[in-house]
């Protein structure tokens, strides 16, 4: 019944969403190693790579989660537009904010970004010049790659825009998670919404700070 009902689909949406959020939190914490300098970041990258098969298991899980989240998102979006075939000539929202109304679109932006990000940093096909420069000293320099990438204002802008989409998506998504898994109660309702804004804000600030640091201070 989980697949057939709206509530079931929303539940899966919430669970896959929260898994990706946890991944993102981990990813962000890892990225923080940047502030300890090039060696720290490179060591962190090397450490991840050394996980070997574990890393692949994790990648497969996350890929599955992502596909599920996206597929459900598209299904829900399509069903919703079917459920409301005619819209109001005059419409005035009372409660729905820009975040909740654009979930599908911010989701698409994030999806596009994830693909780009993988091509950029993981598969490494987008910027051959940068990869060549980064692999100069015997092993691949992740720090160097990031540094050179973010010195390009275009790439930084793409990252900034994508992180803005993440911010908006999460500011509604985290609160929605609590609602969908049934944890929006008299006890939690007071802080769920504020909490999700704060969390989304912290993630955004942290993630954006790295390209900003490269771009502005050329670290």
């Amino acid at each position, binding site marked *: 019944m989980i697949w057939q009902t709206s509530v*079931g689909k929303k539940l899966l949406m919430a669970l896959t969403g929260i898994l990706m959020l946890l991944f993102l939190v981990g990813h962000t914490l890892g990225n923080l190693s940047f502030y300890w300098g090039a060696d720290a970041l490179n060591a962190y990258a090397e450490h991840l790579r050394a996980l070997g098969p574990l890393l692949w298991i994790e990648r497969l899980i996350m890929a599955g989660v992502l596909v599920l989240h996206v597929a459900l998102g598209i299904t829900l979006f399509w069903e919703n537009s079917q459920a409301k075939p005619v819209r109001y000539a005059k419409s005035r929202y*009372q409660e729905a904010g820009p975040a909740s109304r654009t979930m599908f679109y911010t989701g698409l932006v994030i999806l596009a970004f994830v693909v780009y990000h993988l091509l950029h940093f993981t598969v490494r096909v987008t910027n051959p010049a940068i990869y060549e420069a980064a692999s100069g000293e015997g092993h691949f320099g992740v720090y160097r790659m990031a540094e050179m990438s973010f010195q390009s204002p275009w790439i930084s802008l793409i990252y900034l825009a994508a992180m803005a989409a993440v911010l908006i998506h999460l500011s509604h998504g985290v609160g929605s998670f609590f609602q969908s898994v*049934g944890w929006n109660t008299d006890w939690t309702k007071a802080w769920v919404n504020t909490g999700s804004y704060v969390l989304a804000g912290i993630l955004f600030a942290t993630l954006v700070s790295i390209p900003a640091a490269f771009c502005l201070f050329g670290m």
Partner: protein
Amino acid sequence: MEFLLRVWRQAGPDAPGGFEEYRARDVKEDMSILEMLDQVNQDLVKEGRDPIVFESDCREGICGVCGLVIEGVPHGEPKKTTTCELRMRHFREGQTITIEPFRAGALPIIKDLMVDRTALDQLIQSGGYVSSRTGSSPEANTIPVAKQDQEEAMDAAECIGCGACVAACPNASAMLFTGAKVSHLAKLPQGRPEAARRVTAMTGRMQELGFGNCSNHYECQAVCPKDIHVKFISRMNREFIKALFKKKN
């Protein structure tokens, strides 16, 4: 007071519809918006024209049959109000007022501003009750119910079934309506034995009837004339998860 009304007119379920304009004159500020429409209709009838079809019955905000989308908001802008209780003093003199029917695939238009809400009855039919035979009830005070539980059940039970939540939802979802009934009965010991069956049946039926999914916009709560809280949707979700882990029989 005087107003220009832009009213949706549609001859039948499949007929094309469109806005027509009417001038409402001699409107008193104590009038409800429906009384103003009554007045406009009187003139239309006398001119031999087809009066505007809309529904109303109790005109005191409890039967739930009235429901117009006024200036883009089901039941109009003021909170906690049904259409029949919306007074003209809330509008500006000379204002143009746009009036549309509820819009949702599951609530098709019958004529003009009248919609078919039998889908809401079908939702209740699928499980929104306690199966208790008339002859077999225990003495009423046998099971004490904590006051706060009863109060919360009552908060949910106050739903008048007007369907404004569905109309306001950009996805035409019936989560608040269904959530209110599931929560009302799940909160009381009398409703527990069937709680899993109820939530499974009602959420399944909701999908079959063509209601949309919840995107947590919370527009439903904003327009609810009885101020029913979205926490009841969450409560239904929780009941749904519990039901998932219950052994099927």
